[in-house]
């Protein structure tokens, strides 16, 4: 089948304003949008820029807006998009070129919640043990690949990029509810500020956008609950 792919193009060094370029190419139903972009770049227009690495939905680098939804291009099939595809960069982050956005504000928020294990107690001889039940509490949020689909689908983030955003809260959740970690209070204090969880108005865009199907709004709710009750399990 022939597909038409309309791609957002912008080179701030040359273009006065962004525009769209339309490419036509042959595809089969099981082609992914990433395949189409690769074909365009390889055979039709080498100036097209986008990020990708693993091409298997695990590195999180090719998040973009496909037909209005934040998706990973490597996980979106032509079968699901139809023959007309519109591709845009993620909303809410500065465009560096074409589909490449500046992820730094996103990672800054990510770092602000201390997404690493904090435990100053003396190391045990073997490992820090944990029961299956204790692990299950934060299992969902360990799946995040930092693609930014969620944060850049969130109206609160669009309105104000000081909001830490769903991805950072997911990262915080992953450690707050980890029984081996000792800094839950520290992270909760950060999320208890005006740019923390209170900017979440349970819109659920993040949950719908997540390519890993993490129940993000639920995780944010659990953090709010921990703030209210002080209980972590």
């Amino acid at each position, binding site marked *: 089948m022939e597909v038409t792919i309309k791609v957002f193009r912008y080179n701030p060094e040359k273009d006065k304003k962004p525009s769209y370029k339309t490419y036509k190419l042959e595809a089969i139903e099981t082609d992914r949008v990433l395949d189409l972009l690769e074909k365009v770049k390889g055979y039709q227009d080498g100036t097209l820029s986008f990020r990708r690495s693993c091409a298997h939905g695990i590195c999180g680098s090719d998040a973009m807006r496909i037909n209005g939804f934040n998706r990973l291009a490597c996980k979106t099939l032509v079968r699901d998009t139809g023959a007309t595809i519109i591709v845009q960069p993620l909303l809410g982050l500065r465009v560096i070129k074409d589909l490449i956005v500046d992820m730094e504000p996103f990672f800054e928020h990510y770092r602000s919640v201390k997404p690493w294990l904090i435990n100053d107690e003396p190391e045990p001889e073997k490992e820090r043990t944990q029961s299956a039940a204790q692990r299950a509490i934060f299992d969902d949020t360990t799946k995040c690949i930092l693609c930014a689909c969620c944060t850049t689908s969130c109206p609160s983030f669009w309105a104000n990029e000081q909001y830490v955003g769903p991805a950072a809260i997911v990262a915080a959740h992953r450690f707050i509810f980890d029984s081996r970690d000792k800094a*839950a209070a520290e992270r909760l*204090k950060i999320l208890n500020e005006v740019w923390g969880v*209170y900017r979440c108005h349970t819109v659920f865009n993040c949950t719908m956008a997540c390519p890993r199907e993490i129940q993000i709004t639920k995780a944010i709710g659990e953090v*709010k609950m*921990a703030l209210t009750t002080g209980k972590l*399990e």
Partner: protein
Amino acid sequence: MKEHPRTAPQKGFNFDYLMWLFTRLSALGMYLIAIVGVTAALLMSARQNMSVADLMRWAFMPNPNHVVNTNIPNVDTWKGIFWNVMGILMLLFAGGHGLHGLLNVLEDYISRTWVRNLLRGLVLVVWVVMSAIGIYVILTS
């Protein structure tokens, strides 16, 4: 392995947290006041003497002025300190709940700290002034 449940001791009672909690509790509080209002009104013969519209009006603001134009023969039992307190609570909850919603919209869109604090202050002033006027009206009617 499980010694005692993990807790987060210093959750920190800051303004955002308290208002977030207040918004949730005030919503429940308003339901409660309305239910008390409706139940009491039915016990005080609302079923024979009042339309549903008047009953609703009373439920959300239990003020005797809302009863005088109905067929209720004697509004004495619909007056008094208890209904004043209910009316004032409803006023404070509704005003606080609604204005906190406005505050949330402002905080969503305004990132400059001083502008945000200014508007927060303004919303607080509006709440206090409106509540004061409301309480005056309730107590003098």
